[in-house]
């Protein structure tokens, strides 16, 4: 494994000093990915990719311009500054509402290392490959009904140097490992799949903090087989007990996107609702660059891509909407402090307002108490994909469901999609569990460019629309 790069911020600061004038933001970004994918005993992918460059954003004539270069010597970075300024000048006439100079902000300076980088840098890839091959074979061999299995592991090492003309000078390093195992079972022409995924920011102790890789492989295979004989839930508006993974996707998709300030400015359902009750008083919902409550959340970052410390933001406090998520520009327009939510996927992406780790704070109910309190409803688990709409309507997929009648959990049913109005669902919350988990660290959030995020929370008793058969 290659040694880490040296601090790039001195070089960036030197270039910036020679190209001074107006607001300039330089972001060096090196991304090195190691990944392995195995299916049915065959190595589909064993790869290393390394992509490095510098993104340049300028504010000129009240307009942002952006350019990037995949060359990291001073002359190329200086050329990219010129290109960004040209882009800003060429487009300024089309901008009606000029962006005022960005207000001063508490910008980050120094070195910020996340845990796990050195541990995973030292990990031989052959050991990882052996693990992936072994777990795929374990999943495939666990039942005669299993037709195929797949297992994949990836780790992304990121180094960023952010220097701005108004004082940021930060060098950050982090690693995000991700593990996925799936099994496909078949019987009488029926095919079902079981999937387990985990993702973290940090080392393997964070990645496998809830279950070891062997247990995840066993669970995926067992779930594929069990689903072959599972029925479907009945559709309709029903009381449900959402698992922490599903609470995570609810907070991210149904609420988080609607409070991103760029979406708020366009008129999302959260616009104009600051200070209003939008949820049950049992609900406190936050977004944080840190891994609150438990270590290793997959969207953790110390400094955002505008050079701001990525702190914790309360979005809903005791049911009242108290904040949106901001970058520097939107914060200036709203007259509030930026929240450290500007993020860019690679060096050639301009920062956008994105979530980090989004969660509902735990309450005091146990899972057993919550199940016992349900006369007729469902317990849902296993997050699939999700999407939210401007009107607050959301949908997300679940992998598994169990009917609950008279406080008793019934047999496994197939997961279906659920939908509802975000704030209506949050107002319908009757109980909040005390067990907390981060459970959305694998995969990406998409908003023009991908972003690694995490989300989670406790078990939650609420009402949604269930798509049945």
């Amino acid at each position, binding site marked *: 494994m290659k040694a880490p790069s040296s601090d790039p911020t001195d070089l960036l600061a030197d270039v910036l000093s020679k190209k001074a004038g107006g607001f300039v933001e330089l972001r060096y970004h090196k991304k090195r990915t190691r990944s392995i994918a195995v299916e*049915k005993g*065959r*190595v589909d*992918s*064993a*790869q*290393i*990719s*390394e*992509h*490095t*460059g510098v993104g340049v954003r300028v504010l000129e004539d009240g*307009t*942002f*311009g*952006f*350019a*990037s*270069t*995949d060359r*990291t*010597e001073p002359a190329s970075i*200086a*050329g990219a500054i010129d*290109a960004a300024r*040209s*882009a800003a000048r*060429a*487009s300024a006439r089309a901008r009606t509402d000029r962006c005022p100079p960005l207000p001063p902000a508490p910008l980050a300076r120094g070195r910020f290392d996340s845990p796990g980088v050195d541990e995973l840098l030292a990990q031989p890839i052959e050991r990882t*490959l052996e693990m992936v091959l072994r777990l795929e074979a374990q999943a495939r061999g666990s039942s005669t009904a299993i037709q195929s299995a797949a297992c994949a592991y990836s780790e992304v090492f990121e180094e960023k140097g952010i220097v701005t003309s108004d004082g940021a000078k930060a060098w950050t390093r982090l690693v995000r490992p991700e593990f996925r195992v799936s099994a496909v079972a078949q019987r009488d*022409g*029926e*095919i*079902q*799949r079981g999937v387990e995924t985990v993702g973290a920011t940090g080392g393997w102790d964070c990645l496998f903090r809830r279950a070891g890789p062997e247990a995840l492989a066993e669970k995926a295979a067992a779930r594929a087989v069990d689903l072959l004989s599972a029925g479907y839930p009945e*559709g*309709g508006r029903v009381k449900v007990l959402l698992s922490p993974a599903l609470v995570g996707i609810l907070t991210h998709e149904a609420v988080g996107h609607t409070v991103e300030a*760029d*979406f708020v*400015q*366009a*008129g999302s*359902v959260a616009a104009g609702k600051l200070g209003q009750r939008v949820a049950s008083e049992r609900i406190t919902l936050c977004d944080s660059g840190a891994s609150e409550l438990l270590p290793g959340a997959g969207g953790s970052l110390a400094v955002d891509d505008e050079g701001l410390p990525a702190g914790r933001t309360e979005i809903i406090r005791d049911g009242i909407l108290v904040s949106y998520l901001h970058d520097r520009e939107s914060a200036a327009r709203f007259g509030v402090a930026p929240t450290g939510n500007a993020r860019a996927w690679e060096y*050639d992406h301009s920062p956008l307002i994105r979530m980090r780790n989004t969660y509902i704070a735990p309450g005091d109910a146990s899972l057993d108490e919550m199940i016992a309190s349900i006369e007729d409803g469902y317990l849902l688990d296993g997050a699939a*994909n999700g*999407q939210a*709409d*401007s*009107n607050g*309507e959301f*949908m997300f*997929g679940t992998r598994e469901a169990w009917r609950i009648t008279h406080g008793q959990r019934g047999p496994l049913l197939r997961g279906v*999609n659920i*939908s*509802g109005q975000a704030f209506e669902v949050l107002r319908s919350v009757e109980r909040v569990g005390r067990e907390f988990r981060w459970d959305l660290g694998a995969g990406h959030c998409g908003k023009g460019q991908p972003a690694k995020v995490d989300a989670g929370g406790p078990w939650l008793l609420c009402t949604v*629309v*269930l*798509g*049945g*058969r």
Partner: protein
Amino acid sequence: MATAAAPAIDRFDPAAAERDLLARCERLLERALALGADEAEACAAGWRSIAVRFEKGDLKLAQVDRSSTLGLRVFRGGRLGFSSTNQGGDPALEGCARDAIALSGFAPPDAHNVLPRARPQAPGLALVNPAVADLPIDRAVDIGRAFVELARSADKRLSIDSAGVDTTSVARAIATSRGVRASESDAQVSLSVFGMAIDGPEVGGFHYTGDSVRRLADLDRAADAAAREFASVALGNLGARPAESYTGPVLFAPDAFLEVFVSPLVSAASAIAVQRGRSALAGRIGEAIAATDLSILDDPSDRSLAGATAFDREGQPCGRFAIVERGVLRSFLYNAYAAAVEGRESTGHARGSPRSVPGLGAHAIAVAPGRGGHRANLERALDRGLYVQRFSGTVDPASGDFSGVAKSARWIEGGVVAGPVRETLIGGNVFALLPQIIALSSASERCMGEALVPFALVDGVAVTAG
């Protein structure tokens, strides 16, 4: 690391770009073979792009980029290794070759890890129009501003969250130790708009649309169509009410039909999915799997579609390819690996960028129009039920189970649109419902410039109203 500074915004010269990429591929290939690879494949892409972004109807940002990336796949004793880099200098190429070779020391051998032989290349598709390739940034800004004005001019209740104009000029090249040498260039300009309608306290569901073209002469038509669709659907989303639950016929707009039915079917037609036991289409070549109206082509020779190309990710020629003809499954899709498993030749369906190992998939899907007439005819045939314009949900291509929200959905009553509906979920199984296609419209529509798909009326869909 190279020593010359990148010019700010310069012209795109396809021939020079392809020569440069091929030369870098050759250098990478040479290094891989010198380091011990039995076989090696170097693939490269280089591009120049301009992006103009609008938010809330106003210009947000203009961006210019120029970059390239190279990927190297090696086989040693049947063992796979892959590495990629975006750095063009010799030290970076050396590092890339060493990473791939090192990885190939660890994977277990697989006899099907082979590179395809060189085959005669089809004539180039002439995908570069200089007016698009060298579009100046101020012209892109003008195009974007006019498009945004057009999109929101229909009604003051329309709110544009984001819109954009992107021009990308790209060169691609591939060189392998089995003699494959191929290169081509492409230039496209794409438009996109995302937003909703807001009427007092009511916020309608969002809609997004767009298109991608290769001739400036096609841009006005594309912009006009996208703006009209955006305004019509976003405004139509206001005033949504609950629908009714039932199981029966549902009308799908082209985007929804593509996402729920066509894309999962094409995924299941991947030979690798079949070989690995995760396709419901295994063993069904020559069988009727859908209603006789359904024919699906992969047509990368169609220059009107974004995925047009003369060769695939492994340098194999590709052209019109029938997947389903009049409801009968005709062929699976093969890349070199899947072909080697069955001792046959690739069908030219290796996909992906130089940043990863080649995958497998279709390039440019074209679903043949049916005989159902215009959309209004299909609404009359439905008489009473749900019309889905967009699908937000999950489709498992292995089982075919789908479940999700019907977005921008309308209730059809008496054969005409009665109004929008909300919180309505649909579910079913793709493979069980394909034979229940009642009718396809008589024209196929462009889906974001990437596919041609008709409207479809499908029976047996479970509709759950909230």
